[in-house]
């Protein structure tokens, strides 16, 4: 198995998971000008309004550190995510996401690009206030939005991508495949609170788990579990009511643990580890649209075999994350 297998697992699933956070879309409605802010990438507790349709685009481009020993190095990976969300009830939203992955190596390496496994997600929203717990109601005032909001989300990938995608030399590399072969599932919780009229805290804890899959080359692989603890602060710095525009600087911390991949039931060296990312960025709201841009950098890593994990999470120079959401 290729040493960059983490890249295939972690980045693709990271996108699928993070896309669940429709990132500030609730702010496009009543709360656009004064309501809670939203993270750049982490999941938030806001659910879609009943009957509301969300169109979502996210592009995440990772540029990797390069080493002589790793030639040809992984150069960059670009993960594009298209999504649609629908507010089934005021407290339950359903999403479908389709990712497109591009993984490019230096000259002499083997690239991979194509549509990957689609994913289905559901999110249930809650509010906790002086009257206790309740499902997110259809109508919330700005004062309601100041209270603690929570959500539980769950989802699964559908093996629509080509797990046995063959590279230019005819080989199969699970780390560069376009699917996991079998559904992978996610589960997470979020909590959000307006700390003041302009500052919003968002927290997320989530996990992504995989099933073992036997590729056409006979290799049986199970990617290591992804566990995340994310926190974000969004500050409403600029509000232009007449233009229906708002700009929030956002600071996000993401702690990620990656389990060791298993090949033929045996833990694979050069995979897994722990890392902490910092991502400063901005989120803009304009009418019924929201745009976010952030630069994500690993600031602390504890990879299992760091010296062999070029191209894996934690080995990025930086990641550029852009997303756009549109509510109908």
């Amino acid at each position, binding site marked *: 198995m290729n040493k960059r297998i983490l890249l295939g697992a972690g980045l693709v699933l990271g996108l699928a998971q993070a896309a669940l956070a429709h990132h500030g879309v*609730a702010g*496009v*409605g*009543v*709360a*656009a*000008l004064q309501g809670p802010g939203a993270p750049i990438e982490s999941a938030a507790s806001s659910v879609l*309004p009943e009957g*509301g349709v969300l169109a979502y685009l996210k592009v995440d481009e990772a540029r990797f550190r390069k080493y002589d020993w790793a030639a040809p190095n992984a150069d960059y990976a670009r993960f594009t995510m298209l999504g649609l969300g629908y507010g089934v009830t005021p407290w339950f939203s359903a999403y479908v996401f389709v990712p497109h992955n591009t993984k490019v190596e230096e000259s002499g390496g083997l690239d991979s690009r194509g549509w990957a496994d689609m994913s289905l997600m559901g999110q249930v929203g809650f509010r906790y*206030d*002086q009257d206790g717990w309740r499902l997110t*109601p*259809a*109508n*919330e*005032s*700005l*004062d*309601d939005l*100041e209270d603690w909001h929570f959500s539980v989300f769950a989802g699964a990938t559908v093996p629509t991508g080509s797990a046995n995608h063959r590279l230019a030399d005819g080989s199969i590399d699970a780390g560069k495949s376009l699917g996991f072969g079998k559904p992978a599932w996610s589960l997470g919780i979020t909590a959000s609170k307006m700390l003041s009229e302009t500052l919003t805290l968002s927290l997320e804890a989530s996990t992504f788990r995989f099933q073992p899959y036997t590729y056409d080359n006979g290799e049986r692989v199970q990617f290591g579990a992804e566990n995340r603890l994310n926190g974000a602060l969004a500050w409403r710095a600029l509000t232009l*009511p*007449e233009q*229906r525009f708002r700009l929030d600087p956002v600071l996000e911390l993401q702690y990620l643990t990656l389990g060791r991949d298993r090949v033929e039931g045996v833990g694979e060296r050069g995979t897994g580890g722990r890392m902490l990312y910092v991502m400063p960025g901005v989120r803009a709201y304009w009418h*019924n649209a929201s745009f976010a841009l952030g630069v994500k950098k690993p600031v602390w890593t504890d990879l299992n075999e760091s010296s062999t994990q070029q191209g894996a999470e934690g080995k990025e120079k930086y990641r550029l994350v852009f997303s756009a959401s549109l*509510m109908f």
Partner: protein
Amino acid sequence: MRQVLIPLLALLFASPLLAHDLWLEAAGSDYLLLQGHRHSGHAGAETVAYDAARVAGALCVDADGRRRELTVPAQSPVRLAGPCAVLQVSYVSGYWTKTAWETKNQPKTGLTGVLRSWHSQEAVKRIGQWSPASAKPLGVGLEITPLRDPFTVKIGDKLNLLVTDDGQPLAGVPVAYGDDTRGVSGADGQIAIRLRHGGLQLLTASRETPLNDGKADVSLRSTSLQFEISR
């Protein structure tokens, strides 16, 4: 929720109705109807004189739910005889027309350069004592009713309110706490507003509907709910 943005913005961009606050102040067992800026966040005279003829009616409800129409004197500020568990006063300032040059307190009929015209009607409801009667809408015009005893609400807690028009729940009505619009009523006419300070509480709602009388484009109605909580 998306559809509420426009009414919210409309209110944010200053309805002329809200230029002055109306409030009822206890004077012994009676009440004075005052107008001005004493309780508003923007600058202006503490109290402003008004024409007592604009006071169109006053309804007093005692703790047992008995109703009586109060006599409205011709002198300003209007003094109304109490005591009342709930007192609602209706105030009609009539037709207004904004032209390219000025805003006039008259219908648009015959005026040139008309930009906008409206008919203005306000109501003030003061709750002085909580009782089963206080928990129900009086059923007269646009109205805000607390759904629980507001005198037990602590500063920082939310109070659930019901917005009605002639006693019927009304959705999509912007509701403000002081000068700050906090949201719109839901399909059931309800909204929760956080009480942020002690003393006099002023909660307002407004509604704009088309008028076809040829004298103004719209009818602008506003209502305020007031009560006092300990500081």
